[in-house]
């Protein structure tokens, strides 16, 4: 299928991108692996695409105090093999390795994936679970958005129309587990579960269990209160609002969340 017509502009800096985004119905194009399929099906019809794909200074992973700073345009394939992540936050690399397929990982970027705010996105859940800080640039300069304020609704983030996500900052954490259930290897997660220990607490996040990525707060509380993995996992569905679609019903998703949360806690 062929996208509806649009204008195209390539940004040569973040500032330039912000300026270009002043046009009505403009949209940021990074790797394009979330956006272009929507354009082809004509589900998205922007008037202007602002291509930030050449902003190579947004491709990096570096240690920054007790945090790891990841440039928004870092590709999944690069994250999967990144030496800093391997040492300081290996879960990000693990999750990157399991996204899409090799072709998608060669082009897709972590920033694009997170900014797309797809409730089925593995990275979105991971950012939420890690209490990541998301750095955005807009007309008023830079601001940092905590992950728990970033995901507003399905495919809707806290980014303003003229803001560009530039950096994702995650804590250095060892270990951590991300489990997902898929019908086929290339599918989006029917349900995904992230579990990590951050600052002595156990964080549990859920993919595809609501309109946005979710934290399983009831599970986290139960773990904090000393519940067993099985007892804590039984509360995985609390506060969730899973969709029912062709991949699976809401009831099955809730069941999967309980099983995967228990397994993740056991493996943690």
């Amino acid at each position, binding site marked *: 299928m062929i996208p509806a017509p649009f204008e195209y502009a390539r940004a040569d800096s973040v500032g330039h991108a912000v300026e270009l985004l002043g046009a009505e119905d403009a949209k940021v194009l990074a790797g*394009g692996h979330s956006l272009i399929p929507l354009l*082809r099906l004509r589900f998205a019809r922007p008037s202007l695409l602002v291509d930030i794909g050449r902003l190579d200074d947004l491709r990096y992973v570096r240690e920054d105090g007790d945090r790891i700073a990841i440039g928004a345009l870092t590709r999944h394939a690069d994250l999967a093999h990144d030496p800093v992540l391997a040492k300081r936050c290996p879960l990000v690399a693990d999750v990157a390795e399991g996204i899409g397929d090799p072709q*998608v990982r060669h082009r897709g970027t972590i920033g694009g994936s997170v900014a797309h705010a797809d409730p089925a996105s593995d990275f979105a859940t991971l950012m939420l679970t890690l209490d990541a800080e998301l750095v955005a640039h807009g007309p008023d300069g830079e601001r940092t958005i905590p992950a728990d304020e970033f995901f507003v609704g399905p495919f809707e983030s806290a980014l303003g129309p003229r803001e560009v996500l530039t950096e994702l900052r995650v804590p250095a954490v060892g270990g951590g587990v991300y489990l997902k259930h898929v019908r086929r290897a290339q599918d989006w997660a029917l349900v995904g579960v992230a579990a990590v220990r951050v600052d002595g607490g156990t964080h549990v996040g859920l993919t595809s269990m609501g309109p946005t990525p979710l934290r399983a707060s009831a599970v986290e509380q139960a773990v904090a209160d000393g519940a067993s993995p099985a007892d804590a996992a039984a509360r995985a569905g609390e506060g969730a609002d899973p969709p029912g679609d062709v991949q699976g019903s809401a009831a099955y998703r809730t069941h999967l969340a309980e099983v995967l949360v228990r397994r993740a806690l056991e493996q943690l």
Partner: protein
Amino acid sequence: MTRIALDVNGRRHEAEVEPRSLLVYFLRDELGLKGTNVGCDTSSCGACTVLLDGESAKSCTVLAVQADGCEVTTIEGLADGERLHPVQQAFHEQHGLQCGYCTPGFVMATVSLLKENPSPSEAEIRHALEGNLCRCTGYHNIVRAVEAAARAGA
């Protein structure tokens, strides 16, 4: 229209393209390189896989304007004259193709895989080809072909 310049199979091309033009249609319709096929609308099937700056990419999910300044290799760019590329040769010898429609995509995905992992296990091969669909072969002989190509040092 936007002006782009890119190298395809070692040849420089310059063209004016509509921003909405997908790389695969640019290759097929503007450059006449009909070897890259289109099998779906959703980045699922991998029939359109080419190498973009040496790595596999689905050319139906890349705008032609995004490929400006890049090096593209398509299935037509693999063989050395009469001599098939070792991956092509392995697909032939192992009967890794039937109707042939998915074949260029599988061959390009395999070239990219073997560059990153020269001696993959069967499980790694199957995982690495998860973005390419084939309806004819049941993948059995495709996996044999990738193994054979790896043994041949492709």
